[in-house]
């Protein structure tokens, strides 16, 4: 079954720590996205990608890097984690041709202490 799988499901790290969130999709979609969800702000786009090796800056990119190593795999990197990055992170993929058929992963809860 086509899906978007995120790992880990939960993560705790200390301020200044290094965190990598992983996302793999089996939808054969070209587009992949990283969002964060916070109370009072809703879902906000961090980075996205049109395909392997491509990276586009989203609406809240500060403090985050991302890398799309293959069509299937998209990583979000926090190299110096801060408490303000405590959030629920979602990865998603979508079909390029129709700009639809969005599939979201189950989310990663990150706590930076």
């Amino acid at each position, binding site marked *: 079954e086509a899906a978007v799988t995120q790992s880990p499901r939960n993560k705790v790290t200390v301020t200044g720590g290094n965190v990598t969130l992983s996302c793999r999709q089996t939808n054969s979609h070209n587009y992949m996205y990283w969002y964060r969800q916070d109370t009072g702000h*809703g*879902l*906000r786009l961090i980075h996205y990608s049109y395909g392997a090796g491509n990276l586009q800056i989203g609406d809240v990119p500060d403090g985050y890097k991302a890398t799309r190593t293959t069509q299937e795999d998209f990583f979000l990197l926090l190299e110096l984690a801060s408490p303000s990055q405590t959030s629920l992170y979602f990865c998603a993929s979508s079909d*390029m041709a129709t*700009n639809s058929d969005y599939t979201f992963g*189950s989310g990663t809860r990150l706590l930076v202490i």
Partner: protein
Amino acid sequence: GQQVQQSPSSLVLQEGENAELQCNFSSTATQLQWFYQSPGGSLVSLLSNPSGTKHTGRLTSTTVTKERRSSLHISSSQTTDSGTYLCARTGANTGKLTFGHGTILRVHP
């Protein structure tokens, strides 16, 4: 200002009642989508409706593009419909979704 606004922010129903959720967006959308987020946090796509009326099961979405608004009608609500309903628009030439803050729906038995 916020590009996607949803109303009401929350809604409480008795099982069997209908719900009408509203979404207004500040610029023309190439796609207008409705998502459901469960109380556990998982997100699923409900309907993609850039214009006109679409139905799926007990859900009906009507989008009037030139008025920059969309609605989601849930008929005969069930307790399992409880959760957050999110509206999102996609801009031209990108797949980027801009989300509203959602409507929290609670359906009591």
